């Protein structure tokens, strides 16, 4: 994994601090060209990994990258699935079961079970999970996706429920079908590491809010410090600026104190900000000792 990964919140009007800023970004990035301009800038500055939600618009980015394989020879996607609002909004329209039927490419298995009113077998649930993953992955066909992530809303929902086996099913499928490593995004890092241990996902890639302020670090900064020092896993830090509350240098200097943090994912909308983060990172967040 690269030290710096480029995130996509800014392209979709996601801003933890201000609705106004979020809307301004949504307007600015309405056209794909505006998105591609920023991605090109990042790529040309040496940031080659795009960690992105499986939003419909990312399919358009994927298409551009696929079409210009010379220009984007080193371009890497880290898909994060699913784009949760797509499913959440659909639940309101179709109900829980309706959503599964709508999003499954091959609904034969599910609807047969439903029509028959039979109980679900474990293998049925496994195939529902794998079919949903395949549906989300189809937009990246022919592109490099060495790590595939499960989004935090889904990870944390399953984690809370104790639906542990879903993590193992996801990990197995991503490895076998896509030759990729499974990744997990969470707001509850210490708890998730325990669960992944239990279901046998070894040395996992886990992306989580990690910042000096303790913003969105559930379990507390101390618990995070402990797992970052003691547990075997590959950490990706997000929200390192805590939504702008921590100045870049201070943020990265703090992150550098944890050798298990292999990468930082960040979002930016301008060349100046991309270069700013890259320069601070190359000064403070150098290659891990190990």
């Amino acid at each position, binding site marked *: 994994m690269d030290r710096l990964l480029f995130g996509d919140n800014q392209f979709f009007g996601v801003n933890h601090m201000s*609705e106004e800023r979020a809307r301004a970004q949504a307007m600015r990035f309405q056209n794909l060209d505006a998105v591609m301009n920023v991605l090109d800038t990042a790529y040309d500055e040496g940031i080659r990994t795009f960690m992105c939600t499986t939003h419909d618009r990312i399919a358009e980015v994927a298409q551009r990258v696929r079409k210009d394989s010379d220009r984007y020879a080193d371009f890497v996607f880290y898909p994060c699935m699913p784009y949760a609002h797509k499913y959440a909004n659909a639940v309101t329209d179709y109900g829980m079961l309706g959503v599964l039927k709508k999003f499954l490419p091959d609904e034969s298995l599910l609807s047969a079970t439903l029509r028959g009113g039979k109980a679900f077998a474990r293998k049925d649930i496994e195939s529902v999970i794998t079919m949903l993953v395949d549906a989300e992955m189809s937009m990246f066909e022919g592109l490099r996706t060495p790590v595939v992530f499960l989004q935090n809303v889904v990870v*944390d929902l399953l984690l*809370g*429920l104790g639906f542990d*086996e879903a993590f193992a099913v996801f990990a197995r499928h991503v490895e076998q079908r896509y030759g990729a490593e499974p990744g997990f995004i969470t*707001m509850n890092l210490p708890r998730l590491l325990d669960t992944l241990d239990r279901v046998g996902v070894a040395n996992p890639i886990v992306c989580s809010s990690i910042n000096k302020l303790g913003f969105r670090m*559930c379990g507390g900064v101390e618990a995070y410090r402990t797992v970052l020092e003691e547990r075997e896993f590959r950490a990706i830090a997000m929200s390192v600026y805590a*939504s702008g*509350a921590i100045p870049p240098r201070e943020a990265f200097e703090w992150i550098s104190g944890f050798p298990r943090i292999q990468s930082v994912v960040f979002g930016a909308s301008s060349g100046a900000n991309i270069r700013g983060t890259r320069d601070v990172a190359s000064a403070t967040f150098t290659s891990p000792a190990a």
Partner: protein
Amino acid sequence: MVRLAVVGIGKMGLSHLSILRQHPDVQSVAMCDSSGFVLDVLGKYTGLTSYRDYDRMLREEPLDGVVIATPTKAHFPMVRSAIEHGVNVFCEKPLTLSANQSMELAELARRSGLRTQVGYHNRFVAAFAEAKRLLELGAIGEVKHALAEAYGPVVLRAKASTWRGRRAEGGGALYDYAAHPLDLLTWYLGEPSAVSGTVLGNIFSVETEDEVYATLHYPKASAQLSVNWSDESYRKMSTKITLTGTLGRITVDRQECQVYLREQAICPSGYQHGWNVRYTTDLTDQVWFYVRGEEYSAELDYFVRSVAGNLRAGEPAERNSFTSAAVTDRVIERLVGDAALPTTPVSGPVALPGPRRQQEPASRVRQLRSRMQDRWQRRRQTA
């Protein structure tokens, strides 16, 4: 340690179940739903105890509290039944579909001494709570007006296959969306004395409304409600309240609390005259487990601790109680009634207030016209 059950395993129910199962003071969580499919899958993979029959669960499962997240129509009988079994209740919003039923439940809860709470999660959003604190400090003086808005992308085409598209079951933008800003208004300004000008319009829905506009009247203030759940220019539900007072203005949403204070205002600690912005990221307290927003964890944490008798010193004895939710339900009911009242036509006779109304409308119009002509003539002469 408390023993709980979540009833209704839909979008909210699943999220509540997930959060509660990780709470350190929760000993066990059972689940109850009419759909065998959901219980079957969850039961198999999570080992949670499940019931398809709510009454059987209340009889058989030892419970300290239930969390009810069924379609709104089912709230009243379920809540009543839980109270009769001596079980504390957290109920999703709105409490019921009738003000009388909500007041009846509030009264039942009061007499039983049980803990009750309604899922108006915005009151647990740090930015909205900061606005409440500022109002109590009198930072913006006397509130003269409030604008309460909620927009989002829920119904974007004509289709109503779930209960949310049917008013009789508690669907529609009024119950589902407008209830949130209305509850915040209740929190900030108390109960309105009257409502007027209610519009329940539809954009896509056939069986219910997609937009709600109304005026609410308070003894010393007025408020405008503007709600539309068929607006996909908002990525997700967005609720915003603007409070205009004699000494300043507050505009608050989930993310931030923007405050303008006039020169004459007495600034609360940390605030200055002119503009101030407080971000939720700074104001929010850490939660023990996060699924999709600190407020959902915080509201359930409050319920669990109040059932367990573990409220902290200085913490309010009740938050989002049935009594306050019943006020919001009463306002909702009044809006439905108001929407059916006749409006004032623009064409035709002019209705004027006061004793002059007795005059023949036509002669009144003539009188007004001649007065205007006089005025114009005088103006021309002075020019």
